[in-house]
């Protein structure tokens, strides 16, 4: 198992390098000019200097190498410095955003809590709702509960977040006036009242995201339970007189959770990507919103770094899912 993990980790390095190269090359073709907003009265030689100040003067391969060094060598040093108060990174040039002229990673760090709060809560809520629904739907297959569950998850699959989001805004903010339609990220939780405000503004985005997550995971849970409910070991467990609760919730559930856990792990990075739209609808200024803003402002270092972070998350959670699968299911051996 350990060798498998190590081998996969080693394999992940060239994959990620290749992905970063693909992203870099894609962005190389960008027709947008970061100098487009500079007034026309600025003479061309000054513009050329400004361009060089952004690091655009050198050929592509050198800039790619610099980005790699900055991302993989200097940024971790900055992190270490930040944690331990050392000064490894003093004087080194970091990945600088063209929009704000501040280090990209600083902005990302600022934005992460918002995304984690909203998306993370939604993911947890979605999974917690999905599991019981899936279990009971499978246990009572083709009952009215199962049919309703199927229909609701079909809706969850089919209604895009930009529609369900707008719909809940119309219903709960415009008509009923219960929740604010815009997420206030400057809000600080200090006491019970401010916590309730935070809860109120989180309910709608969490609801929208959780619907999608619930739809997917409950289908997986149901299918996985159905696979196991007809197995011989279940009949054996019943035959030796175990209670129905123990059969379903211990024997069947444990075995059914194996693929579901990996699916849950696999879904984590895609939620970051999928949350782009939800963040846009509710004006949560998290990572997804940062990416949209950077794309619209032609801020290439920011776009490159953010998409690469998404890619790292995907590769990482793929790896985690595979390892989990091997750990949970003794029948699967990778070596």
């Amino acid at each position, binding site marked *: 198992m350990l060798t498998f993990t190590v081998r996969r980790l080693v394999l992940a390095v060239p*994959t990620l390098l*290749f*992905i970063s190269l*693909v*992203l870099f090359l*894609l*962005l190389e*073709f*960008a*027709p*947008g000019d970061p100098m487009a907003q500079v007034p026309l009265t600025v003479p061309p030689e000054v513009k050329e200097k400004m361009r060089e100040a952004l690091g655009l003067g050198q050929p592509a391969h050198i800039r790619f190498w610099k980005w790699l060094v900055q991302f993989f060598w200097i940024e971790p040093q900055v992190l270490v410095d930040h944690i331990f108060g050392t000064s490894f990174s003093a004087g080194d040039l970091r990945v600088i955003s063209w929009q704000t002229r501040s280090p990209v990673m600083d902005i990302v760090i600022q934005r992460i809590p918002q995304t984690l709060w909203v998306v993370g809560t939604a993911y947890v809520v979605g999974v917690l709702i999905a599991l019981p629904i899936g279990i009971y739907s499978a246990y009572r297959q083709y009952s009215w509960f199962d049919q309703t569950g199927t229909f609701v998850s*079909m*809706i969850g*699959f*089919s*209604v*895009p977040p*930009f*529609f369900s989001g*707008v*719909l809940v*805004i*119309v219903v709960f903010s*415009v*008509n009923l006036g219960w929740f604010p339609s815009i997420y206030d990220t400057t809000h600080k939780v200090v006491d019970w009242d401010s916590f309730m405000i935070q809860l109120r503004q989180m309910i709608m985005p969490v609801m929208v995201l959780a619907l999608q997550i619930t739809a997917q995971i409950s289908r997986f849970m149901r299918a996985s339970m159905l696979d196991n409910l007809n197995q011989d070991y279940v009949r054996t467990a019943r035959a030796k007189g175990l209670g129905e609760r123990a059969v379903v919730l211990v024997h069947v559930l444990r075995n059914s959770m194996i693929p579901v856990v990996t699916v849950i792990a696999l879904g984590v*990075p895609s939620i970051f*990507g*999928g949350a*782009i*739209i939800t963040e*846009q609808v509710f004006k949560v200024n998290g990572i997804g919103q940062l*990416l*949209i803003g950077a*794309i*619209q402002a*032609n801020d290439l270092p920011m*776009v490159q770094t*953010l*998409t690469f972070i*998404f*890619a790292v*998350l*995907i*590769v990482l959670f*793929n790896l985690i899912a595979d390892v989990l699968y091997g750990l949970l299911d003794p029948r699967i051996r990778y070596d």
Partner: protein
Amino acid sequence: MTDKDRLVPDEGLAPASTAVPAAGTLEEFTKPPQSQWREVWHQFKSHKGALYGGLLFLVIILWVYLGPLLWDLDPTKIDIRARNQGPSLAHPFGTDQLGRDTFSRMMAGGKTSVSVGITAMLLALGLGSLVGVLAGFFKRLDGLLMRLTDLFLALPLLPLLLVMMLLFRDPLNAAFGPEQGIFILIVVSIGVTSWMPTARIVRGDVLAIKEREFVLAARSIGTTNTKMILRHILPNVLSPIMVSATLGIATAIITESSLSFLGLGFPPDFPTWGRLLFDATDYLQQYPERVFWPGLAISLTVLSVNYLGDGLRDALDPRIRGR
């Protein structure tokens, strides 16, 4: 189907290589208990959701393609005097802030959205089937192509799509005109980023079919690789391809609408369902119903296609069929 027919097991009796019989003549000649496709249709019919989903999808397609012939109000005609009207006989869904008829805009938008969905699906399907068949059939290509598939699966797709829209919009606009250019761009970028699941499923099936006796028999009479793939392999992997086709339409429509919603899709004067929804959010407080129609159209289309795919999967799976 009578009870007597039900007793005849369908698997194993019909030779697998005649998976797609040339209907009519062949059927009279061999007369199997029931042709495979009738069997499939029978199972499909019994799945009520799939039947209604398919019907609904058909109705939506007819509505967006043939509707404009009957309802010939120009979706781009501005009538500023008749702006922001509610539903009436002249404008069943009312008019927007520039007095354009929402009903005809919905049809025009649907035409674009559905066309994008179907074309992008066909592209993704073609790419996916090609990669899947090649990887499954030729052992030499397998490792390389599957690493490529894994690589594409590791890419963050929505951010990548957004970046592609940003980068290639202007060159393509210049080459093909604003509408054609964006159409090509959206279809190609959705197709290029969504072929991987199809490729994986097809490869798995091809690997299994390659080992079957009929392939060996075909090989022994000197069938070339091309003939083998076209006549023996492809017809047998048709069912997973069809299922991913329906699901592909759904994802393509949602992706296109998301792009339009994020302001990176079609230009503002060119209606699609996503664009209509995006424009309507500005008037959310005054006219919430405007958000409702395009959103409902997207959701219904995707819902019907999803149910269709669900039913097809059951109908085409011989293990479930006949139960």
